[in-house]
């Protein structure tokens, strides 16, 4: 089986409140899945369930083909998890802590040192090995958390908001690291920072009020972001019926003065033909730009108009 994670019809109730509502998805090797959603959408609950920290109300989770509810020990061997707050013991040094984590995950003694060195190098911790975790900055503690998650080279790495509280340089380094990890492992990453997903993920999922409202590859999302409208501005008053009749134009919407928004078919942009017409008619072309929807807009669109998108997804 090539699927590293297989989640099927996952439900989680807290009392009457449904935090995760029928979530299903798959993750394959080499994929980095970005898990997006506003606060309280159910991201962390889903991740905790994947990592066996929380029992689902119903549903199935397979890690590398092993059911985490039936065989938690075997499944957890394939898992590395960094929760929202890095689970570090402040009174231990980085080396002591990582050695303890390695032993917990059953790394044999002779390989422990190598695994330790490798994880420290990848997370840039080589210089702070002998320092107490409690004395490290938030960014370094976060790195220790990541080192702990990748120490035993698990098949699946789950990172809950790994860049929270880091400075811009560290964020860049961590993203670099995540991309690198994505080559050999399956990575799930939760965040509410949209550019992060654009930059480091191959798959995107948006979760809202416990429901999965979008599950797409990053290319698919780019497709959605691609404009289906142009902004046109002319010096002189154009002949609107003639503009509307240009091949591909669906609708004209007057903005202000001689500015118009031109809606067109998604896959055929009339920009070139519009320019020709405007120039040849002597209306004076001042502006012709294609509009791009930002990821923020899609995100807000999806999370505020859930019912509409649900229909599309169905």
């Amino acid at each position: 089986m090539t699927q590293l994670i297989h989640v099927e019809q996952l439900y989680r109730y807290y009392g009457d409140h449904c935090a995760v509502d029928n979530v299903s998805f798959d993750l394959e090797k080499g994929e980095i899945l970005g898990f997006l959603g506003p606060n309280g959408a159910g991201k962390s609950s889903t991740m905790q369930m994947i990592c066996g920290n929380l029992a689902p109300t119903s549903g199935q989770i397979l890690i590398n083909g092993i059911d985490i509810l039936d065989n938690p020990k075997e499944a957890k061997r394939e898992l590395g998890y960094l929760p929202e707050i890095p689970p570090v013991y402040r009174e231990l040094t980085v080396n002591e802590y990582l050695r303890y984590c390695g032993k917990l995950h059953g790394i044999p003694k002779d390989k422990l040192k190598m695994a330790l060195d490798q994880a420290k190098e990848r997370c840039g911790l080589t210089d702070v090995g002998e320092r107490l975790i409690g004395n490290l900055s938030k960014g370094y503690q976060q790195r220790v958390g990541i080192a702990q998650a990748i120490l035993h080279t698990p098949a699946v790495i789950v990172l809950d908001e790994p860049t929270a509280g880091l400075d811009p340089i560290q964020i860049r380094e961590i993203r670099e690291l995540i991309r690198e990890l994505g080559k050999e492992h399956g990575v799930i990453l939760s965040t509410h920072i949209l550019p992060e997903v654009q930059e480091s993920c191959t798959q995107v999922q948006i979760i809202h009020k416990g429901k999965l409202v979008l599950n797409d590859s990053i290319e698919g999302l780019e497709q959605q972001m691609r404009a289906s409208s142009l902004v046109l501005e002319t010096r002189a008053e154009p002949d609107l019926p003639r503009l509307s009749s240009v091949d591909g134009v669906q609708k004209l919407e007057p903005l202000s003065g001689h500015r118009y928004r031109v809606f067109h078919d998604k896959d055929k942009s009339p920009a070139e033909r519009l320019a020709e017409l405007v120039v040849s008619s002597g209306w004076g072309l001042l502006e012709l730009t294609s509009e791009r929807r930002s990821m923020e807009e899609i995100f807000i669109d999806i999370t505020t108009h859930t019912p509409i998108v649900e229909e599309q997804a169905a």
Partner: protein
Amino acid sequence: MMAFVIAGRELRTLFLSPLAWSILGVIQIILAYMFLAQLDYYMMLQARIAGLEDAPGITDLIVAPLFGNAGVILLLVTPLLTMRLISEERRNRTLSLLFTAPVSMAEIVLGKYLGVFAFLLIMVGMIILMPLSLLVGGGLDLGKLAACTLALTLLLAGFASLGLYISALASQPTVAAVSTFGALLLLWIIDWTGTTAGQAGGVLEYASLLRHYESLLKGLVSTTDLVYFLLFITTFLVLSVHRLDNDRLQK
């Protein structure tokens, strides 16, 4: 066995904080003083009881009271050692490290328990050194000493298991410490009303930690007492596993 890895870290962490060292130091000083007082008392008494037939020996007059006092003092101290076990990990959100690692709940609980139990064994070891020092100057009833050691070990094992369970219940270490102390003290004195009451008294008497501890200290190693302690320990360990599993089932 993963439990030993967890126990090892637990013990290590204990010694990294000044708490463990100060507890060891304070207990040793106080008990040494009591030991000395008991020794003085024996010296004074020695001349008077020398002529008696079937006179109480040095073990009865020094060792048993010493262990009796140790039990009471450790009743005060053990909650301080057990309070952090789970409640602090839950507070610092480090429990998820254990939950994600390939270890079962039982191993986590057992690991925590063994860690603190190992520390208590060190304490018992240091307390035994005092009566053993009497061997330099005279004889000692080693059988009785062994019974006393067994009694203290079982008692502390019981304290620790109850403490562990309450630490799993509480969200703050201090709350765990106070509740553990309260519960232990109640179990200690629960037979105070039982001595006068009729039928109910029997049950309360059986439930009392002190009763079983004292009978072991007398050198009477009976199965009733052993079973009582073993049941006590197992019950609270199983309850702890359940409580921890609840964290996963629902919050």
